[in-house]
């Protein structure tokens, strides 16, 4: 029954009996897409290698995996009262998850009550569960190769993991060996946590309940740890409050983003001044007649640079309806300074005509933004009867870097002669939400950080304490 860690046998090479040393093996990691070094045990005599699924490996690495073994409120010989029962901690076994190269351990503290009843306190990732033996109404480990049947519930065997003993001390009800494996299945049923632990010789079924760290520290901790715990509670509440404040900020920012996205700021006077450069000039292309019109609107002021704008070009049906015909357009947004440079500061219709007559052949584009589209109105008939469809507007988003005075050059080609004023141009600034997004992301990070700290902040030495 009594087992001291020193009694655990030191493992030697199972092949030749030679001493084992720490070493590494280089393997290709699919995720990292490069070779990585993984720790292994190696026989210094014959070179035999042992990976983390062998007992030899733990004989070599057990000390590393139990270096922080004193980092717990539990200690051998310590007494504490939980639910009016006094327990004394008499032993401990530490397991390492054999699928992990890094340290991934949990401790099973063996406690005996004053009346001789035993209990395991499992300390893992800062949580403590109290376990007791459980006899299920039904259990079947073997009939289904994929699943375990437990009181009518199916548990996938793929959820199982193997724990290897890396440390043991004090009094235990059995004699552990370093590296000894056990396959564990943890699951919850009806809100209760169960563990099935299967080794070569035994299947153990236990039922656990979470014990709060506060209760554990009140029961087993010293005055210093109790004060630390009170301090932790205070700091965690502070983090929680901060997380709530940041969350509110995050929500407000989100609402601002939505508001900004939904609202806009129109550019005034786009169509106030106009130069009609051409009106319904008949052109024939590919034996098809079309009427060509050109108008230059502006100048008008755009007051905000580095902003998102929306351009909308649409048929103004109050001027003339589009009826069973089509019309195409091209809109160019021209900064006044470029236009003046291109016309040698001549703000005259002939100069504009000359410039825009060759606009596609200019070495330096005069426009800072271009947008094309079509309007159409059609009807016909099919299996479902007559149909009539039309598309009378086009929209596009763009960014204007610099504020200033601009012209809007509108080129129209229509199937029938149409007044230039039957097509309207509208520009509007979409209120910028990009900064709000950055602020929201920052606030969201602060929420997550403070929530994390609200559950993980720790000063008390509970192993890998999380909650």
């Amino acid at each position, binding site marked *: 029954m009594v087992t001291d860690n020193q009694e655990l046998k030191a493992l030697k090479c199972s092949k030749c009996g030679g001493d084992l040393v720490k070493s590494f093996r280089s393997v290709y990691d699919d995720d990292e897409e490069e070779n990585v070094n993984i720790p292994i045990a190696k026989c210094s005599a014959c070179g035999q290698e042992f990976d983390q699924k062998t007992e030899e490996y733990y004989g070599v690495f057990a000390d590393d995996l139990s270096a922080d073994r004193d980092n717990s409120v539990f200690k051998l010989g310590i007494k504490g009262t939980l639910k009016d029962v006094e327990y004394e901690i008499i032993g401990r076994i530490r397991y390492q998850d054999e699928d992990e190269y890094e340290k991934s351990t949990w401790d099973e503290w063996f406690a*005996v009550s004053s*009346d*001789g009843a035993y209990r395991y306190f499992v300390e893992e990732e800062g949580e403590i569960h109290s376990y007791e033996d459980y006899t299920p*109404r*039904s259990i*079947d*480990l073997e009939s289904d190769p994929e699943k375990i049947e437990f009181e009518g519930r199916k548990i996938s065997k793929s959820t199982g993991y193997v724990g290897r003993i890396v440390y043991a001390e004090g009094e235990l009800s*059995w004699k552990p060996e370093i590296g000894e494996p056990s396959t564990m299945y943890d699951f919850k049923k009806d809100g209760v946590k169960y563990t099935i632990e299967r080794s070569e010789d*035994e*299947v153990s079924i236990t039922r656990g309940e979470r014990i709060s760290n506060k209760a554990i520290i009140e029961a087993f901790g010293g005055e210093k740890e109790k004060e630390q715990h009170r301090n932790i509670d205070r700091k965690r509440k502070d983090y929680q409050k901060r997380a709530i404040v940041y969350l509110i900020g995050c929500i407000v920012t989100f609402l601002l983003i939505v508001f900004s996205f939904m609202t806009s700021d129109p550019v005034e006077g786009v169509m106030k001044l106009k130069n009609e450069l051409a009106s319904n000039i008949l052109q024939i292309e590919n034996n098809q007649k079309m009427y060509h019109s050109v108008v230059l609107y502006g100048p008008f002021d755009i007051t905000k640079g580095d902003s998102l704008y929306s351009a909308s070009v649409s048929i103004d049906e109050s001027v003339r309806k589009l009826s069973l015909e089509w019309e195409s357009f091209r809109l160019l947004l021209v900064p006044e300074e470029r236009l003046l440079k291109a016309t040698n500061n001549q703000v005259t219709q002939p100069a504009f005509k000359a410039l825009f007559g060759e606009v596609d052949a200019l070495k330096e584009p005069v426009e800072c933004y271009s947008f094309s589209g079509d309007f159409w109105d059609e009807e016909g008939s099919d299996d479902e009867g007559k149909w009539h469809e039309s598309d009378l507007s086009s929209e596009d988003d763009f960014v204007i870097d610099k504020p200033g005075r601009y012209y809007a050059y509108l080129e129209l080609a229509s199937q029938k002669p149409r007044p230039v004023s039957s097509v309207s141009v509208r520009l509007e600034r979409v209120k910028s939400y990009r900064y709000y997004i950055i602020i929201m992301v920052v606030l969201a990070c602060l929420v997550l950080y403070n929530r994390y700290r609200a559950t993980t902040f720790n000063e008390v030495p509970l192993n890998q304490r999380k909650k």
Partner: protein
Amino acid sequence: MPATQCPSCGAPVEVKNRFSKVLVCGYCGTHLKIAGDGFDSTGRHPKLAEFPSIFKVGSRGTILSKPFTVMGRMRYSYPGGHFDEWYIEYDGRTAWVTEDEGAYSLYTEVFDTVEFPDITAVRAGQNVMIGEKKVMVKEKGTAEVAGAEGELSFYIEPGTKVMYMDGVSEGRKISIEATENEIELFVGRPLLGRDIAVT
């Protein structure tokens, strides 16, 4: 049965249960087979070491609200430790309470006529059929009788090897113990600490 003396040391001993077949002298540890009105001394063995337990020979109380008196104890040792089997008078009958790794189980039914599996061949986690019941094997192994105290319903010489198999079926605990001469099946249930009250 009247009080009498240990034939080995002369200490007063008393058999309290009519089904007891062995009495271990509380003074010298001699195992006394109860035969008719007298005792056959079978040998002296060291007293059992005491480990924390809610039971001791002679303790009384209730289990599941029914009265019990502890008559005796058998202790088995195995490579990983030991377990105790407490022989009790329970609600007018006899029964066994096992105490293993701090867990208690009450066995009130004992069978020796059902068809047993070959427990040498079973392994932990396996399903076996006992009668018409499917039993999952929790543990199997070999233990050695370490000693005894008080009154017992059967006698096994200390040092005797006993094969055992523990299982679960339909929420009940199944235990099979086999020696060269005998094999017995115990059916019982787990006990929680609150199920046992020692007065």
